[in-house]
């Protein structure tokens, strides 16, 4: 499993094709704006977003499990075989 982080919506749009179905997606900083598109959560991938970044930008998500803490961020990094940062 690869952990892909995206720090802006454009980064996700441009690099979506490099994400495999079993990979995990983590949205950070302005990347959390991607969740304004509700269809994103219909994708097969596990998708997370930093809760502090969601709150700062006034973005609400219907599924509370999507919003994670810095602690869970660290866990995801530790669990992943590779980490790919897209920006």
């Amino acid at each position, binding site marked *: 499993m690869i952990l892909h982080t995206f720090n802006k919506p454009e980064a996700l749009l441009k690099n979506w094709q490099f994400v495999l179905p079993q990979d995990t997606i983590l949205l950070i900083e*302005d990347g959390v*704006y991607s969740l*304004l*598109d*509700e269809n994103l959560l219909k994708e097969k991938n596990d998708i997370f977003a930093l809760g*502090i*970044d969601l*709150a*700062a*930008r*006034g*973005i*609400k998500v219907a599924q509370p499990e999507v919003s994670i803490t810095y602690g869970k961020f660290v866990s995801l990094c530790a669990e992943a075989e590779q980490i790919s940062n897209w920006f």
Partner: protein
Amino acid sequence: MSKSPRTINSQESFDALLAGSAFGQCSVLFIGNGIYQLLGGQRPEPLGVKNYALGFSALSDYDVNLIYCSKSQLQLLNMHISELIIPATQLTDYEINQLIVQHDKVLSF
């Protein structure tokens, strides 16, 4: 205003708007990522950043009542007019062209 919240650009443009309002009639147009500034319920304080977006609701006290945003770009960002912190008038691309023509000075941030 065309930049995301919490960029220097967005804060400076807000300050420029308040300063300008002391001298004459000002309008403000939000386009591109600048529309993100208008999302309600922003709480950036845990990141150590001041929430200047709260000031938008005070714009009417500064006689800034002409607040516009791009209709097409609002849709592009998957946002709805009801999510905005202040009521903004949605303009088509043609209406934005006309708006710019009508103004004596245009400052872009």
